[in-house]
């Protein structure tokens, strides 16, 4: 049995799209959706209840009277999971029909090869869709140094909705850090790998899900602070790859915050983060500036 854990907050239309993608899965085992409504307005909650009622899926709807935030919602979902296997999805993102089938095959393949399946998460390539732009495939490379690759965020990215694993594997690490209003996925992935867990590939070159990305309404300062919390928490692991690497990782975090600021119309804020990156790692900042000039 598979439990699919979905947090939701005031986005019933997005939720419906996600649930439809779950219902369309080619995998034929028993699945249950555990949906946590994180304090949506009465009107949105009524829509969610109608969606749940009309859905062909087996859905358990949990409700919070007030908005607790994503990490608390995810902890509540993890606690409510009863199945041996667990997968995640965020309202507004979608799975392609063969996602769970490929990921279960990967689990069985690893089991057959002697791996302890309670120490692996099966990830997958995914499509990345900025609102109003073309979809592009993002490759999850699980072959390298996963801790380093997660910090860098180029070859391997921390997104829960790419994963399928045993419930046991998701409790290998501690709970979602409730201080992290953003980026709790990254912290969760880092903790998992540091605890001896390993991400494995779904074994297909095709993307298996799609992330609809938008920076709008997301606070750059909040994101940069969450990065600082994560860097402090995983300080030893970060420094383990050298001081230069740690500097570059911090500078990259500044650039991410700058992007959020820019996309939300905070041009001076963005400039401030870029200056921060320049002071932290001038070489990396120069590389980014050159890339920007050449590629735009």
């Amino acid at each position, binding site marked *: 049995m598979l439990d699919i854990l979905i947090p939701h907050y005031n986005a019933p239309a997005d939720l419906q799209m996600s649930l439809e993608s779950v219902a369309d899965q080619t995998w034929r085992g028993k699945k249950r959706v555990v949906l946590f409504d994180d304090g949506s307005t009465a009107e949105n909650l009524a829509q969610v209840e109608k969606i749940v009622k009309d859905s062909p899926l087996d859905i358990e709807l949990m409700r919070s009277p007030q908005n607790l935030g994503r990490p608390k919602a995810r902890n509540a979902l993890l606690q409510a999971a009863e199945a041996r296997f667990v997968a995640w999805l965020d309202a507004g993102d979608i799975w392609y029909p063969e996602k769970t089938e490929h990921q*279960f095959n990967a689990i069985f393949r690893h089991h057959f090869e002697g791996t302890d399946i309670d120490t692996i998460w099966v990830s997958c390539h995914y499509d990345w869709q900025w609102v109003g732009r073309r979809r592009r495939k993002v490759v999850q490379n699980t072959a390298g140094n996963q801790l380093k690759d997660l910090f860098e965020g180029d070859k391997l990215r921390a997104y829960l909705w790419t994963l399928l694993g045993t419930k046991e594997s998701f409790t290998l690490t501690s709970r979602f850090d409730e201080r992290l209003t953003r980026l709790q996925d990254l912290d969760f992935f880092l903790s998992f790998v540091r605890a001896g867990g390993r991400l494995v590939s779904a074994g297909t070159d095709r993307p298996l899900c799609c992330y609809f990305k938008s920076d709008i309404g997301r606070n750059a300062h909040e994101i940069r602070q969450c990065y600082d919390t994560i860097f402090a928490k995983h300080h030893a692991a970060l420094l383990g790859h050298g001081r230069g690497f740690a500097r570059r990782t911090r500078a990259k975090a500044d650039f991410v915050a700058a992007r959020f600021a820019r996309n939300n119309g905070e041009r001076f804020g963005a400039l401030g983060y870029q200056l921060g990156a320049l002071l932290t790692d001038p070489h990396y900042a120069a590389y980014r500036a050159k890339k920007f000039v050449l590629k735009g």
Partner: protein
Amino acid sequence: MELCFVLGHRNVLLPKHLDTQLFENLLGAKHRVFLMPWYSRNAGRYYHERLLSVEEDRRLETAILAIEVEYQSEEIPVMIFPSALESADDAMHLQRFLSACVEKLGDSPLVVEPVVLNIGEADEDVKARLLPVKGMQYKPLRRIELKNVAPLDGRCQINMFSDKMADELVGYVRRFGLVLSRKRAQDFIVNKLDGFVTEELYFDLTADDAQLKRLSDIIFPEILHGLVNKPKRKR
């Protein structure tokens, strides 16, 4: 756990042209063929016999895990063992496999529904090959005749005929100084016979060797001629 085993002769149960969906229709709405892509990309029913060799690796544990995870409680996983009834050795392998299943399942009871597909032997002879296993029980034997399964009939008969004629085609091309594997020979015959079914020309299951020889005399030259005159593939 309830399983369904399909037993019979290799020349009927070969995977070629017996696709999973048709097989599920044949057995019933609750029955679903157990696929094993984690074992091999091409795995499926053809590889169920691979489960009978359980000494060295974890294939049996993985198969049980996959069945437990992928099947709803009301569904019955189907496994096909084309040669399990062909010899006493094969019957013993099946018995060993079932014993191992019982052991791995622990307290969960195992019930097996045996289905035989189109074999001439009496039920008592078939039951004698299904050796008893401690801790599991067999449901009553179910018999399915190909001739009674209209949608499958033609396709299964192609399997049967192509298997019977393959050795002869290998010998036929050898007369022209050519070497052909048995598997490839079967492919060529299947391709040829497929056209018969399309034209609603079916096979007599009781055809004897002389009749098969007359059919071979017509289609083998055509197969070879077709290959010689086949247009070159564009590079």
